[in-house]
């Protein structure tokens, strides 16, 4: 067994593959390579020193060449170790953010359960269904967050497969509007669709594109003002279709705009009006649209509103 373990330790290529990084970024491989080059350097220098010392220029050239190779390898090792340190730090940050976001629904669940199970029932008996609703809402909140995290992890590892086919963006928009109409109406927000009748179909994974389109509409409603308006527009543009969601809500401050598609980023304005939110929706959206050979973007002005859009190809 000890021997097998030793063999596993020596199987550098397999180990590097496990980390999911290229061989030229893998410290183990680079160390072995450097060792080999150092041995060659030592042998060559010795040979040169004893046999062809008469031709100092050749010796200089060879030694210089070997030094450059060593320098390049050392540099790669340093870079790859830096990358590892950075990834490690990002992981810690990631765990911090995620645990914080799971905490709010968890404390809601914990207290609601404590009350349901306590002897303090009294008038709460009649409120049982309200408490069940709290349990349901917060369980949903947690499962949505976990689903988003899994999507992010799959996208980042390249394990997110798209089932591409032709589909109608207009039908998708109608479906999303039907889902979100009650929420919009509750805040007196008008939800409108503007799409010409004879639009061609787009090429992409309808289920994944729905995630992106729904996120745009959901954000436009959440970050709107009372009695605001959300307009969903679909229009042809070159060999693509444009899907845009325009609102006249709180908008994004100029200095937050460059970060808007970053993982976990939430604008100061968004935080002020809505304290819930994972900061993952637009990050996921950008990755999905880019994998679908499309483009994503937005235009926004603080206190005036935002327009988020994506372009999807008409033909494969």
């Amino acid at each position, binding site marked *: 067994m000890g021997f097998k373990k030793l063999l596993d330790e020596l199987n550098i290529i397999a180990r590097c593959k496990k980390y999911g990084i290229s061989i030229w970024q893998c410290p183990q491989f680079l160390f072995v390579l450097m060792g080999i080059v150092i041995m060659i350097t030592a042998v060559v220098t010795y040979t040169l020193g004893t046999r062809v010392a008469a031709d100092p220029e050749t010796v200089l050239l060879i030694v210089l060449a070997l030094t450059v190779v060593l320098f390049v390898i050392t540099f790669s090792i340093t870079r790859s170790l830096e990358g590892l340190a950075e990834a490690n730090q990002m992981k810690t940050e990631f765990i911090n953010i995620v645990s*914080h976001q799971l*905490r*709010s629904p*968890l*404390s*809601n669940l*914990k*207290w*609601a359960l*404590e*009350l349901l199970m*306590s002897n*303090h029932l*009294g*008038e*709460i008996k009649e*409120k049982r269904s*309200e*408490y069940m609703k*709290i349990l349901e*809402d*917060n369980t949903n909140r947690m499962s949505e967050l976990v689903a988003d995290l899994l999507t992010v992890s799959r996208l980042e590892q390249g394990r997110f497969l798209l089932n591409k086919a032709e589909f109608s963006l207009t039908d998708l928009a109608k479906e999303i509007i039907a889902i979100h109409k009650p929420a919009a109406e509750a805040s007196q927000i008008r939800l409108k669709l503007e799409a010409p009748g004879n639009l061609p179909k787009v090429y992409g994974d309808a289920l994944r594109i729905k995630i992106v389109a729904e996120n745009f509409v959901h954000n436009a409603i959440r970050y709107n003002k009372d009695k605001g308006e959300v307009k969903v527009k679909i229009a042809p543009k070159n060999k693509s279709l444009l899907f845009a969601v325009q609102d006249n809500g709180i908008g994004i401050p100029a200095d937050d705009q460059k970060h808007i598609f970053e993982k976990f980023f939430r604008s100061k304005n968004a*935080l*002020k*009006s*809505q*304290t819930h939110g994972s900061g993952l929706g637009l990050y996921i959206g950008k990755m999905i649209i880019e994998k679908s050979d499309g483009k994503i973007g937005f235009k926004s002005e603080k206190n005036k509103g935002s327009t988020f859009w994506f372009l999807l190809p008409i033909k494969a």
Partner: protein
Amino acid sequence: MAKKILFIEDESALQKTLGDFLKQEGYNTVSALDGETGLKMAKTEKPDLILLDLVLPKMHGFEVLQALKEDAGTKDIPIIILTNLESTGDVEKALELGATTYLVKASYSLEEVIKKIKKALGE
């Protein structure tokens, strides 16, 4: 007379659970869902104690805390911070600004929160 507690918290679920629990314990509760409204209510309702969340819409809990402690009419009301943030920096800042206690929601049961409330009210 029942003591009045103002609960400034944007999670409606927590408003409900802790609110119901406090009522059962014989307290009179009023609540605000954002920092701005909470600050206004603290002045008009004159509560005996304030439960204050930190991450709040419109006005952060620290700003509310500072404003309450700077106002002669509200500076003597005991304030319990009830949040899910728990960095030492946040705790220190809250106590420095004059909060009575700092509780992390996820680590306390309702029973324990009530005990802290009673203590802050001197009961």
